[in-house]
């Protein structure tokens, strides 16, 4: 009797072929994107979204063409922070044009589509038991977004990932092996421990781990014009990946983020300089072809 692998095709539904075709369309849609960089952590609340937006801004200021895909569909924050809440989506000749920030960063965020008073829901044949299918549905949605929006010619497409070490690995599996990862932690032993788990999990796959950023590394006191400790100082454990830099917390900057004000509009601060440093480290860790266009 024939076995599964003796039979070519699946009898006519072509499910596997359709999945492969979708993946092929995604790859084609991203063909003109020079670098894919996912910003993750594993831990929630460490400032992945803020860092993603500010790094994108710093890279954009260097003349790079940058886009952000807010992959945190259940807790999207880029729309508000990037100032594209309620942005207009315009149908192009074949795909949807992306909203842009004032400084020209293209942004897709579910927050542009769904009010903050609403949660992301999907229609379902199965009432309840969403843990059995929800992740699959969300990745299908991610595929549709990658496939259907005009990413065009970009130097960098940054993915703002949701929390969860296992989710970070799922994104690595879904995105192309050419997607590089930057992990974000804060100076707490708990956060570092979770990020170390993400490092361990990602290290088993083909994706490059560019390094980690320690966010909220002290806070910037404007009165003293000094960086002061935010967490009880502990000896940072070896993360086994390069440190791209440390970024202090700036309460005023956080407030501006909530209002959708970009870093470029703010006066230079130690936090701004730290972000500039991380952006440069990020560029250095990518290919030499990432030099800003002349």
């Amino acid at each position, binding site marked *: *009797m024939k076995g599964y692998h003796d039979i070519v095709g699946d009898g006519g*539904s072509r499910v596997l072929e359709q999945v492969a075709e979708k993946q092929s369309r995604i790859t084609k849609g991203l063909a003109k994107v020079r670098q894919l960089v996912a910003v993750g952590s594993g831990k929630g609340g460490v400032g992945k979204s803020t860092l993603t937006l500010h790094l994108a801004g710093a890279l954009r200021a260097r003349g790079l063409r940058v886009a952000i895909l807010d992959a945190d569909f259940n807790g999207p924050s880029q729309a508000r922070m990037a100032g594209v809440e309620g942005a207009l989506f315009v149908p192009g000749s074949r795909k949807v044009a992306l909203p*842009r920030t004032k400084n020209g960063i293209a942004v897709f965020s579910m927050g542009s589509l769904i009010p903050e008073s609403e949660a992301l829901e*999907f229609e379902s*044949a199965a009432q309840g*038991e969403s843990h059995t299918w929800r992740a699959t549905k969300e990745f*299908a949605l991610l595929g549709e977004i990658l496939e259907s929006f005009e990413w065009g010619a970009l130097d960098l497409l940054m993915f703002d990932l949701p929390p969860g070490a296992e989710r970070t690995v799922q994104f690595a599996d879904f995105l192309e092996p050419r997607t590089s990862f930057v992990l974000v932690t804060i100076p707490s032993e708990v956060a570092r421990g979770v990020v170390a788990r993400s490092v361990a999990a990602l290290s088993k796959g083909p994706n490059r781990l560019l390094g980690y950023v320690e966010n909220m590394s002290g806070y910037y006191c404007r009165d003293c014009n000094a960086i002061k400790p935010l967490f009880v100082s502990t000896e940072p454990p070896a993360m086994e990946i390069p440190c791209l830099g440390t970024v202090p917390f700036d309460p005023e900057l956080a407030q501006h983020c909530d209002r959708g004000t970009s870093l470029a509009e703010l006066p230079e601060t130690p936090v701004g300089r730290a972000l500039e440093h991380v952006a440069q480290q990020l560029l250095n860790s990518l290919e030499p072809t990432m030099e800003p266009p002349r």
Partner: protein
Amino acid sequence: MKFLCVPCDSPMKLQTLAPPDGGSLSVVYSCPECGYEMAMLTNPFETQLVTSLGVRIGPDTNANASSVASASVDEPVANARPSGDEKIEKNASTSSGQCPFAAMIPAMQQGTPESAGHATPANGEEPLPVRWTSGAETRLANIPEFVRPMARTGIERFARERGSLEVDEKILDEAKDFFGM
């Protein structure tokens, strides 16, 4: 999933996908050698699992052009949604039947063909309807379902603000330029 006719040792072919029933798909396979038919009946969880892949389920229309009519897997999903919100159910069965967010995007209620151009403005006055040319409609149809209602509403507002009651491809290009896209 593949099905094998054991007596013939021959792979069975997908023939039809029956209309959905309570979230269950009825998929009929037959053996091309002996003609034996069998039906695979999925439970709602299995239906949802395969639906979540974002693929079309049914006979390959290219390979089986003469097959009995098949149903998209999205239809049973839409029909199997829990009852309780008839307005949303109505939308789901019209322009946004496949939209996974039909249940929760308020703007979607303004995005159906019936209501196109009739969105109620803040001052409560009924705005003049906006007509879409076939070229503009085609471009709208090319974009994902979950963005379409918001795109329609936003573009119509953009057109009205420019004194136009027609959305054509020129207006769409103008909007792209205006927003620096």
